[in-house]
């Protein structure tokens, strides 16, 4: 039973999310008396549907399915350990880019970002890292800023 519940962690989380949405609707959305279906109707309907579908999935697994649910996160082949560290570092790098561009500027931040990302993905060739970072940053700056006239934050330099 515990194993089956563990395999349904996604449905449980979604069901709780649906309940959370139901709870915050009265706070987040004012009701309107002007239309037959007010602005709360669809959010209520959708939150209810999410709760119902999650409940069906849990009940199916607990009472109907004879084997553990196969829809658990993919297991990777033993010979390759999953690159969760790379994912975590990439996520942090993405956030850092968004925070640092207004401060350092597009050119410096993007140069650093591409270089760091190439390092994270396993590239250790300093020449390739330098060339790719510089060429990519220059090309995107030229295309977006000069040709397409899209404003790119300048920060302390460019």
């Amino acid at each position, binding site marked *: 039973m515990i194993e089956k519940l563990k395999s349904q962690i996604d449905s449980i989380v979604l069901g709780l999310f649906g309940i959370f949405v139901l709870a915050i609707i009265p706070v987040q959305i004012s009701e*309107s008396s002007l239309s037959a279906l007010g*602005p709360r109707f669809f959010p209520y309907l959708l939150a209810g549907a999410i709760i119902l579908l999650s409940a069906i999935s849990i009940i199916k697994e607990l009472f109907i399915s004879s084997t553990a649910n196969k*829809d658990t996160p993919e297991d990777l082949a033993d010979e*390759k350990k*999953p690159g969760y560290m790379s994912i975590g570092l990439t996520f942090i790098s993405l956030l850092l880019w*968004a925070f640092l561009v207004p401060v350092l500027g597009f050119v410096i931040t993007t140069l650093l*970002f591409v270089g760091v*990302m190439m390092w994270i*993905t396993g590239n250790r060739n300093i020449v390739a890292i330098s060339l790719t970072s510089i060429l990519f940053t220059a090309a995107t700056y030229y295309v977006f800023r000069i040709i397409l*006239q899209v404003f790119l934050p300048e920060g302390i330099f460019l």
Partner: protein
Amino acid sequence: MLDQILVGLLNVFNFHVFLALVIGVAVGMVIGSLPGLSVTMGVALLLPFTFGMSPEAGMLLLIGVYCAGTYGGSISAILLNTPGTAASAATSLDGYALSRQGKAGSALNMSIYASVIGGLISGVALLFVAPQIARFALSFGPPEFFALAIFGLSIIAGVSGNALGKGLIMACLGMLIATVGIDSVDGFPRFTFGFDSLTSGFELVPVLIGLFAISEIFNQLERRAKSISGMNKVKNEKFGLKELKPFRKTIVKSSFIGVIVGAIPGTGGAIASFLSYNEARRSSKNPSEFGKGSLDGVAASEAGNNGVTGATLIPMLTLGIPGDVVTAVLLGSLLIQGLRPGPDLFVNYGPIVYTVMIGFLVVNVVMFFVAKSSIKYFAKLSVIPNTILLPIVLGLCLIGSFAVNNSFYSVFVAIAFGLIGYIFTKFKYPIAPMLIAMILGPMAENALRQSLIISQGSYKIFFQSPIAITFIILTILSMALPFITSKLKKKPEVDHVIEARKIGG
């Protein structure tokens, strides 16, 4: 009419007009393939360049950007799972799977053939039956839009594969996310939590970039894949008219779907491509192949979304009603040139109008040659090592998200949806239903509420329109038929077993 067509043909091949057309196609293809740069942005950016041009050259420059940009979205959709435009999201479902199998060349070839044929069919519709299609399109009101949206949402069952429950949950989540912002019927904020940036809701492009591109990059990093195709060489694939022949029915049918949907103001390429994709899957002999690398899927989606391009010009030229944001910019271009769209346009400026319509057909032909000559270079992207490609693609995702409205809010949205998409795919939740629901959900909600305001709360309004009734019946049939068909297919097997037992005693 024939003499005006001939005049139009002569004008198109005037040096300046043809040069503007070719430049538009080249620029459009680049803009369309870059995530975050929309066709609308491309058309709007080139609009000032048309001020000093003749009306024909100016319009064909912009139409070149429009058509090639719509096609260009499929290049990044196929190679990088990063649809350059929302209209190419359905293409990535099968196109990217083909890239992973080392068949990027076939997918790109199918994409260009289907796009061009879709564009040519919609161009012919524009030239010969524009007024009739415009009249049909104008008969769409809120009840018809609601029925169309529900029909469109029914395709979620198709794109969910075997995970229907999970697909439905994703669709509900997508529609819920689309409710964030100001309610367009009553004007009340919903789920803004006091943040100003949330009053405008979530823009589709950053969500697209996050759900498709960034989440796929996370997936690639987890798998430690060496390259997208896992190979170091592109398969040498021949793809000509012979290889195209088995898909002609899908392409033509999807093109017509694109024409009908495109002529209705307020719809667009994304809806047409998903409707075409679903129809192709429904009528296919091998529906289980869809989503795993079916060329039929690529053909349907691309023919559908390019079938929209000419059709959206129909209400714009005949009635002065823009079908979507791009045609609104094109309408602006016409007004700047001193041309007033509407029924009189064809009478007072016949040569210009026919030049534009013939030019539309020539744009698609030029697009074919430009794309065909570039395909083998594009296909090589799928074998570039991930240590070089992924950082570049991520960089483009970030810049593209920022470029949507020059705001870091969009960048954070893209990153957040990247994480959400990655987590959901880990638990085998399909992503496409969320995107479809985000596009169609608001249309369904607004149309439903507007219809009930018109009918003062009576649901009978949905059964008083032949068009709405047709779409409702189509929805019921498309959901019930696969179920009934599968039951009927099992029945002969059961009878067979019973007969065998009787004989055995």
